[in-house]
């Protein structure tokens, strides 16, 4: 671990780390499913609710003003974090899944026609598959799937072969939640744009680990979830290029997203970003999501990436010589995740015994069934890392796996 990474100071900010599980100190390796929250985030949310909550926009009274300013300033924090041009491009949504569905059901319905094709990859999370499958069925659209190389990277040749079919949309993940693979978003996006495709990138596993610059990547849509960036649940972000968002029809109708409503003269819609934000938003969530990005920036994104790289490397090292252990995902560029199986040991059994040792890992298909099916496995054991994990915890994990395996075999 980098000498300078202030791990103790960071850990002190996560109350949950004081917990014991089954009488053992908690070692939490499930941040890819959902990260824990530092006090700064928990308190930002609680303080907002206790002291300045109100419904936002259009209110004349002081609380409404304060709440609106706090919420809109969080939007600007997100904009700056992603290096987007304008807050018009930053939509608050319920999470990554909601963001992808929004694009599928608005941009997708408006732009995809029978006979068109769209392109996904084998490593996508269900949330970047099912909305497209549902749309494809509705619109008579074909789904092309880019397969993977042995190490869990995208098969570049196949990417090009599919691209020659001129898909209208290329949607892929920035970082694989099951394998840890970091995709070269900039290069793939450029290639997709060359054939005129629109590009959506699922950033759910990237924003928690890496600096993401949507301007530099030049993606058309980018989405992530607050609960994975040390933020609250129920909130996420959909970035979209202004011109695209402007041309899209609205999705959810209701308060906030309208300009004027009339039974007789018809209804007109609000401007961006509000056009896509119907109803009372998750105000406290937006504010706390802003606080979580502030917190990440305080730690430093480079430091975070470096720390997690050390943990990932170390995990590979200490797990590698366990008898019968196979890693899934060995790309040269990985982030935050180590996935593996041990011969003759079911992941559920391993996860159950590790839990008894206070070690939280995720087992199963990680919402990537098409990938697991292709690999011919029911799932993996996945250890994923966050700012608060330590090398010592990784050693505990390895020792735990050894002990559990010896019991199970």
């Amino acid at each position, binding site marked *: 671990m980098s000498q300078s990474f202030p791990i103790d100071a960071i850990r002190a900010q996560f109350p949950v780390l004081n917990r014991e599980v089954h009488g053992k100190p908690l070692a939490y390796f499930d941040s890819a499913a959902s990260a824990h929250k530092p006090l700064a985030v928990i308190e930002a949310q609680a303080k907002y609710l206790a002291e300045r909550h109100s419904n936002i926009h259009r209110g004349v009274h002081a609380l409404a003003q304060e709440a609106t300013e706090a919420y809109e300033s969080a939007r600007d924090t997100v904009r700056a974090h992603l290096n987007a041009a304008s807050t018009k491009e930053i939509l608050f949504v319920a999470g990554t899944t909601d963001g992808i569905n929004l694009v599928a059901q608005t941009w997708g319905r408006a732009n995809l026609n029978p006979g068109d094709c769209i392109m996904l990859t084998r490593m996508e999370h269900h949330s970047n598959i099912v909305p497209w499958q549902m749309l494809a069925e509705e619109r008579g659209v074909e789904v092309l799937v880019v397969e993977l190389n042995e190490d869990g990277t995208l098969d570049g040749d196949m990417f090009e072969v599919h691209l020659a079919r001129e898909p209208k949309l290329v949607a892929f993940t920035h970082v694989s939640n099951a394998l840890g693979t970091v995709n070269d978003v900039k290069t793939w996006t450029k290639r997709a744009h060359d054939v005129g495709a629109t590009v959506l990138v699922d950033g759910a596993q990237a924003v928690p680990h890496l600096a993401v610059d949507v301007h530099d990547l030049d993606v058309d849509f980018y989405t992530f979830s607050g609960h994975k960036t040390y933020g609250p649940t129920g909130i996420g972000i959909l970035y979209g290029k202004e011109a695209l968002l402007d041309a899209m029809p609205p999705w959810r109708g209701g308060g906030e997203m309208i300009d004027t409503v009339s039974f007789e003269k018809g209804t007109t819609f609000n401007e961006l970003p509000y056009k896509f934000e119907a109803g009372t938003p998750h105000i406290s969530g937006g504010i706390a999501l802003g606080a979580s990005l502030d917190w990440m920036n305080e730690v430093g994104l480079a430091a975070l990436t470096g720390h997690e790289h050390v943990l990932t490397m170390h995990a590979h090292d200490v797990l590698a010589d366990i008898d019968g252990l196979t890693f899934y995902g060995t790309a040269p560029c990985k982030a935050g995740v180590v996935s593996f199986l041990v011969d003759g040991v*079911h992941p*559920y*059994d391993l996860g159950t*015994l590790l839990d*008894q040792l206070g070690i939280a890992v995720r087992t*199963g*298909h990680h919402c990537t069934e098409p990938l697991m099916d292709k690999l011919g496995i*029911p799932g993996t054991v996945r250890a994923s890392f966050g700012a608060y994990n330590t090398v010592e915890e990784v050693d505990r994990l390895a020792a735990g796996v050894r002990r559990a395996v010896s*019991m*199970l075999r």
Partner: protein
Amino acid sequence: MASVIDARQEEIAEEFAMFGDWMEKYEHIISLGKELVPLDDADRVDDNLIKGCQSRVWLAAKKGVQGHVVFHADSDAIITKGLAALMVRVLSDAPAGDIAKADLTFLDEIGLHSHLSPTRSNGLQAMVKQMKLYGLALTAQG
């Protein structure tokens, strides 16, 4: 009068009371899983499959004598299999009516209740439900 099911539960509770810590308990469950006679290929079929999201369970039920139901179970995960073996030990070859209304307290007593939680999605809870349904169906029939 205590049913045969309750007697078996008591027996299991006593058996587990001997173990000092969770590790010994799990070792025992694992060994029960290993000892469980695997299902016949004829029974290890999709019709008998109870799909949990974490592990899969197969359950075969047959009519026994005197309105009893006989169960056989299997799983791809060894801990699930050991727990399934315990369920079978408690419920199999018992009167259908008793199965239908059985109150499975032994898991609580041996401290493994969480394995039967619906949120665990290991298939065990659905298996027990299925066993009781068989019991109910046969009671109605008989």
